């Protein structure tokens, strides 16, 4: 098994589920201080469930782009070190702030992931893992622009949403194009479809060239 330290399959009384330890967020299942991490709701949980090697280890620094209301980033922050959570929308930010208030290593930033110069004065260099889950056209461009934060040998954990690039095109064609674009600055290590939990999403694990 390749689960990061701090992430385990635990028995919640209705079968074993992926879980992390920490302050509960919202109405999720909790057992013995462990919070269920639902692969149907979280793309990163779906990646772990597929045994992808995300490179998350305790003490790592993480930059998370597209944190939304913070459910996924809260699980990540509970197993790693300093975690920077970028989200552009004001509405989910209120919830993200609540989640971050309970976690001294989670730093919320209301910023546009397409403009890293607006948060490069806050987010430190040599990040271990860059997680990207942004529903915007130009997802490869976002990954290129944020590559400057990653250390050599660090990991890009990307969930490509085909419909954000082009709703009319065949998802496989979109994935091929995004990956070809990524390969100019990243070396692709693994890919996996996130169907059926996340339709038309492809997980990509890469490292900077």
């Amino acid at each position, binding site marked *: 098994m390749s689960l990061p330290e701090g992430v385990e399959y635990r028995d919640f009384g209705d079968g074993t589920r992926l879980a992390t330890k920490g302050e509960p967020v919202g109405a999720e299942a909790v057992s013995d201080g462990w919070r269920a991490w639902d692969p149907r709701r979280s793309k990163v949980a779906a990646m772990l469930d597929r045994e992808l090697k995300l490179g998350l280890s305790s003490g790592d620094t993480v930059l998370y782009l597209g944190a939304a209301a913070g459910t996924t980033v809260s699980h990540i922050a509970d197993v790693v070190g*300093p975690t920077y959570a970028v989200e552009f929308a*004001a*509405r989910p*930010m*209120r919830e*993200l*702030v609540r989640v*971050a*208030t309970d976690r*001294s*290593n*989670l*730093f*919320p*930033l*209301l910023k546009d992931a397409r403009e890293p*110069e*607006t948060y*490069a*004065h*806050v*987010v*430190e*260099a*040599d990040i271990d893992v860059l997680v990207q889950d942004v529903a915007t056209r130009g997802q490869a461009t976002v990954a290129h622009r944020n590559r*400057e*934060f990653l250390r050599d040998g660090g990991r890009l954990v990307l969930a490509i949403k085909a419909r954000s690039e082009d*709703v*009319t095109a065949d998802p496989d064609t979109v994935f091929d194009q995004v990956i070809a674009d990524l390969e100019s600055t990243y070396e692709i290590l693994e890919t996996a479809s996130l169907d059926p939990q996340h339709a038309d999403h492809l997980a990509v694990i890469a490292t900077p060239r």
Partner: protein
Amino acid sequence: MTNEGWFAGLDPGDQAAGAAAIRSGRADQPADWPALAVEAGFADDASEYYDRLHAAAITAAEEAARERSRAPDQQLVHAVRSMDDCSRLANELAERVTEWAGSYFADTGAGLDSVRDLAARDPDDAVEARIISVARRVDDLLTERDELRVYLENETPTVAPNLAALAGPVLAARLIALAGSLETLAKKPSGTVQVLGAEDALFAHLEGRASAPKHGVIFTHPAVRETAPEQRGSAARALAGKLSIAARIDHYSGDYRPELESDLDDRIERIRGRSTE
């Protein structure tokens, strides 16, 4: 651009200044900020640095989110959605109470007017008391809907003068709501503005199940609705083009340009003229 961290030149105890620096600062590249902050004396060690960053980042995110959600265009978005909700709820509840009243009273009609008549009655027994009370809720919802419309008619022109003049205040607010904000509306191509509110039809078209929608919510505009069906696509395209320009002026400059209206009238007249040739 300088390459300094958010903490440069700050008093470590001044959380408000830290939040302001996080919100408005920039840097060309990231750096080892925790080490640099310790070196600069901003914190004794990395752990203290992260505590200060945490406090300032939470404040900055809260302030920035609140500021954005209190923006005037967001009040129009909530008001127009509330107006539509009041309308939908009133109709739904009116249907229920009409059915109930029809089964109990000898003389009730159908429609919202009959519900308002019902609301004005005095009950004679416990059942009538309930029926009439429900009818009064419908009446209240209709009153609120009308007041929200008046609010939109007053407020939209102050937030988006050109868009309100061209589209009418309610349609202008509805377009802003569909786009999410005045800024996102201003950044949309006019072809998108043309079909805002017709997303189902648009996706059916993109999947090859239908022809392209000619118009979305702008169908309610007289320039489209009162144009002959065979010219409506052209009228919708012309209107959407002018609405996009209006939204951009409202977002980027904000001054009122009356000539936009006469431009639109000319275009629509020319389009309608083509059918008689």
